[in-house]
């Protein structure tokens, strides 16, 4: 009896171990993208539409833009869909991506505590607002994670003529994490923070934070999409990946993006046809 028990345990263990390998092979692509597109719910809205039209399942790995580009470099995704134009152009120039396409832009906001120690609420001049935050040495939480939003934040500091590194260890706090954790930190510390509107709108733990600066042209943030170069990584599902890219920039894809709203607010503005808004 003991022997049969042991045999069936081994058999069960074996069956469990091989089970993952026999998952049905479906048509799917892996997309390395950003937390802002995933956590805002945009993908949850548009991907089912794409899958319904094409039968291709899209698996999204949501990371910071820098990490997402690294995943593409290593060949671990078929498509990269991020928001840091300079880094994306480098990615294509180095031969990791095939061709960069404009897809949409979203807009960033500066959130801050109701007490507003830097007195910037209502401003439309982000550079000036950041200068005042630095002057007041008011706490500011930075993503610090090479994400697209982090890159945008650093560009804005540059425009403001402030080197935030001087406030490191004091009022300038780099958390090295995604948008959500950074917002949680800012909420807990009553700090200012640069966030994308999508994540902000779906973020539930705002506590004392509210939007203090918005609708500045410099807060627009362009998203691009690229196929990972199949000549560099032979296993890339080029046909399916290209299909996804073509759909994103097509009328149907652009409409799906424009249709996505939270509380009536549009989060992403399709602009595949036009040039990037100047900042």
């Amino acid at each position, binding site marked *: 009896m003991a022997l049969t028990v042991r045999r069936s345990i081994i058999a069960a263990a074996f069956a469990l171990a091989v089970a993952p390998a026999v998952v049905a092979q479906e048509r799917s692509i892996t997309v390395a993208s950003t937390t802002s597109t995933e956590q805002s719910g945009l993908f949850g809205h548009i991907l089912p539409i794409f899958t319904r039209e094409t039968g291709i399942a899209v698996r999204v790995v949501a990371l910071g833009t820098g990490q997402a580009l690294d995943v593409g470099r*290593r060949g671990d995704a078929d498509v990269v869909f991020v928001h840091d134009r300079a880094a994306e152009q480098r990615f294509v120039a180095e031969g990791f991506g095939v061709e960069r396409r404009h897809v949409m832009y979203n807009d960033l906001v500066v959130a801050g505590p109701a007490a507003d120690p830097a007195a910037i609420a209502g401003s439309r001049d982000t550079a000036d607002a950041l200068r005042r935050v630095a002057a007041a040495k008011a706490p500011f939480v930075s993503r610090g994670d090479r994400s697209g939003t982090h890159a945008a934040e650093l560009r804005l500091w540059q425009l403001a003529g402030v080197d935030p590194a001087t406030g490191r260890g004091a009022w300038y706090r780099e958390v090295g994490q995604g948008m959500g954790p950074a917002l949680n930190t800012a909420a807990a510390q009553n700090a200012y923070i640069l966030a994308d509107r999508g994540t902000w709108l779906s973020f539930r733990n705002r506590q004392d934070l509210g939007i203090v600066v918005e609708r500045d042209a410099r807060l627009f943030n362009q998203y691009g999409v690229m196929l990972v170069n199949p000549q560099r990584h032979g296993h890339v599902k080029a046909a399916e990946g290209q299909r996804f890219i073509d759909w994103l920039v097509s009328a149907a894809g652009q409409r799906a993006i424009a249709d996505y709203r939270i509380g009536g607010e549009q989060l992403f503005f399709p602009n595949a046809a036009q040039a990037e808004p100047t900042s």
Partner: protein
Amino acid sequence: MNDLSAAFGTAVGMIAAGDAALAAIVLLSLRVSFTALAIAALVGLPLGALLAVARFPGRRAIIVALNALMGLPPVVAGLLVYLALSRSGPLGPLGLLFTPSAMIIAQALLITPILAALARQVLETMWEEYEEQLRSFGTGAARAVPTLLWDGRFALLTVLLAGFGRASAEVGAVMIVGGNIEGFTRVMTTAIALETSKGDLPLALALGMILMAIVVTVNALAQGARDTASRWAG
């Protein structure tokens, strides 16, 4: 306190509603952790038994290494598996990164040292009792290993539960190698991390409660089986 009761209400509501997405996440969590546990047990338990029984040069070093590896940070295990499975890594052609298989490998890597180290401790005590008798039978080390594993099965169940607990509670490694892909590699822990980062703390807490309920249930079932069976075997 308010948050806690809200979370509890959410948790009960989700279970009562039989949320399909939640069920899929729960099932994937169980499948990944149990498969990892099975693989780790096939490697770790015999290794632990061998270390309890055999005396050979390097044995101390292996034991020290295993004890140290029990504290292996999940993120490090995740990174190692990530680099190995990445298309640019040595096992890249298998195409396993960002799949449940990758998560299984990472968890198995994480808990094999735990199972081996704990099994060695448990079985070494048993070996002290058995050694003379088995040597009198002429049982060599190779034969003593399965004997100890079988006779220690009830004590080893506790070891397996420790491994299962660690695997199912782990988030760092599966996040890195699984990618937390909705409907494909999202498990309880990565879902909790995601909801936390979205600031939906009550939902995150509710998911945490459900995870705890699952772990408690698994433990209760295993302990119940153990108690019944060990009362039989003495």
